[in-house]
Each structure stands twice: as C-alpha cells, then as structure tokens.
C-alpha cells in the first residue's frame, strides 16, 4: 500500500463537514397569511423545495411547478400538525416526496423515468473502481471544465432511489438522519444509496468529460 507522508504536520488544510444552506430570510412579497408562522418558517424554503421537485420530476418544469404548489398547499392545510421551531425543511421535503409518489400512483407514468437499462448499467458501473478512491490523482479543476447542464442531465438520468437521496443531500443540504426521515428508510440505507449515487454520478461526469476531451482518458 502506498503511503506518502509529508514532512511537516498539518501541511494540508483539511475541514470536516461542508457548508449547508441556512434558512433564507422571508421576503417582502410573501403574503400575510393567517396560518401563524407559515410565512416565516415554510415559505423561505420554497426555492429549495422547487429545486428538489425539479429533480424528482426529472427536469419537467410544469410537473415540478405543480408539485411545488401541491406541496405547499398541503403543508398549509396541515400546518397545525407541524411543531413550530422544529425542522420545516425536512417536513416540507417529506410532503413534497409523498405528494410526488402519490401523484405517480394516481397517474401512472406522470413522473416516471425510463430505467429499462438500469441493471445493465449498474453491472458496468460495479466493475469500475470508485472514482476518487482509485489510483489516479483526481483534479479539482475538472469541475471548472464542465459547462452547460451536464451535471443536471446526469442527475436526472439517475434511477429514482439514487436521484432523490443525492438531491436531498448534495443539493438540499439535508443530514443523513433528515434524509432517512424524508425517505422513511434507515440511516444505513441513506449512506449506502448516497455513496452509490455519487459514484454513479461522478463516473458519468467523467465519461462525459473524457468523451468531450475535457480530461484525458484513463490509461492514456
């Protein structure tokens, strides 16, 4: 096993954790609602929920807007069940996902994504070592070379169970326990799905970057 030590301690600057979005401030144009606290606690998360809805629906803007509206109308209707000062963001994401799933049940294929070749793709990916833990030296500037909507397209193309956990974590900034609550699965499942989702996403971005000539192909 290779082990390359630096001569001095603390030569690399290392930080645990990452920055997570704090609750945005309420906006002036927010309506004066009778539901106490709804404007202050729920509405600031509208954009975040919209972002989540866009990815849940695979980028279908009309479906996402319907989903956002349904989510907030339902949240408003059941606002009396929300414990003020708890986690409105997780609560809203949960409602959004449940509404999305309910919509799928009601109207088959309304939000469904094609995943017929998923098994074949998973087998291919399983044979590839995890990017970032392989022998190559990854280059952080790789991300600066990606332009356009590659990452969004790659996320939208992920199977749903991977897409939702990745979006909740890496775009929605939810913690593992919060994601577990939204998805109603154990934390261990969140961790394994998230690890796999990131691996698939990064592998796809790399393939795209290689085929586009942004980075050199492996083995060259």
């Amino acid at each position, binding site marked *: *096993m*290779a*082990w*390359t*030590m*630096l001569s001095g*301690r*603390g*030569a*690399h600057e*290392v*930080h*645990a*954790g*990452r*920055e997570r979005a704090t609750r945005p401030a309420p906006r002036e*144009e*927010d*309506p004066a*609602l*009778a*539901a106490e606290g*709804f404007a202050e606690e729920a509405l600031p998360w*509208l*954009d*975040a929920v*919209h*972002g989540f809805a*866009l*990815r849940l629906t695979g980028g279908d*803007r009309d479906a996402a*807007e319907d989903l*956002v*509206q349904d989510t*907030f*109308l339902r949240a*408003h*209707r059941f606002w009396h069940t929300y414990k003020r000062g708890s986690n409105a963001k997780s609560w809203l994401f949960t409602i959004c996902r449940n509404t999305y799933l309910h919509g799928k049940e009601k109207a088959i294929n309304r939000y469904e994504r094609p995943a017929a070749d998923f098994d074949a793709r998973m087998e291919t990916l399983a044979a590839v070592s995890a990017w*970032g*833990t392989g022998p190559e*030296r*990854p*280059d*952080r*500037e*790789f*991300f600066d070379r*990606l332009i356009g909507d590659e*990452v*969004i397209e790659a996320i939208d193309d992920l199977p749903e169970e991977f897409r939702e956990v990745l979006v909740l*974590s*890496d*775009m929605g900034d939810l*913690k*593992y326990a919060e994601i577990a609550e939204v998805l109603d699965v154990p934390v261990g499942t969140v*961790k394994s799905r*998230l*690890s796999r989702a*990131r691996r698939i996403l*990064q592998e796809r971005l790399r393939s795209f970057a290689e085929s586009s000539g942004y980075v050199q192909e492996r083995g060259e």
Partner: protein
Amino acid sequence: MIREKMGMIRCEEAMARLWEFLDGELEDVEEEAVRKHLEVCNRCYPKYDFQRAYFEYMQRTSPRGEGSVDVRRELFQKLLEQEAGGD
C-alpha cells in the same frame, strides 16, 4: 512504521470514511483520525480535495428557485384562497 508511531489510521480506513467526514457525520474521535490522516497523506489529500470541489460544484449548479417568480405568485394566490375557504 511511521504512521503506527503517530497513531495514524491507514489510507483504506480514511478513504472508507471520506464521505461521512465531508458530510460532517462522523463522531469527534473518528473525525479527528481522518483529519489527521488527510493533513499529512499526499496520496489521500487530492481525493479529499476533489470531493470538496464536487460539493462546491453541486452548490453552484443547484437550480434553486430558477424561474420561480410565477410559481410564487400563483402559490401565494392559492394559499390566500385556501385560507378564505376557497379550497
């Protein structure tokens, strides 16, 4: 071995915990072990740095609220209607 004298974890252990370290989900003792490893390991640090860049990229490309002006306006109208008993 130098790393054993320094009480270091191995590269495999550090990399196995990398996501949880970056997600801020490790207990203090484990977090400190990974941090100490990354601070001095020239093999693992680039992988850590790359994954940090991934998170920065994801934050930059998050489509929060894109084109949501009409969504907001329509939603606010419906919320007010709902409160007025229209739904």
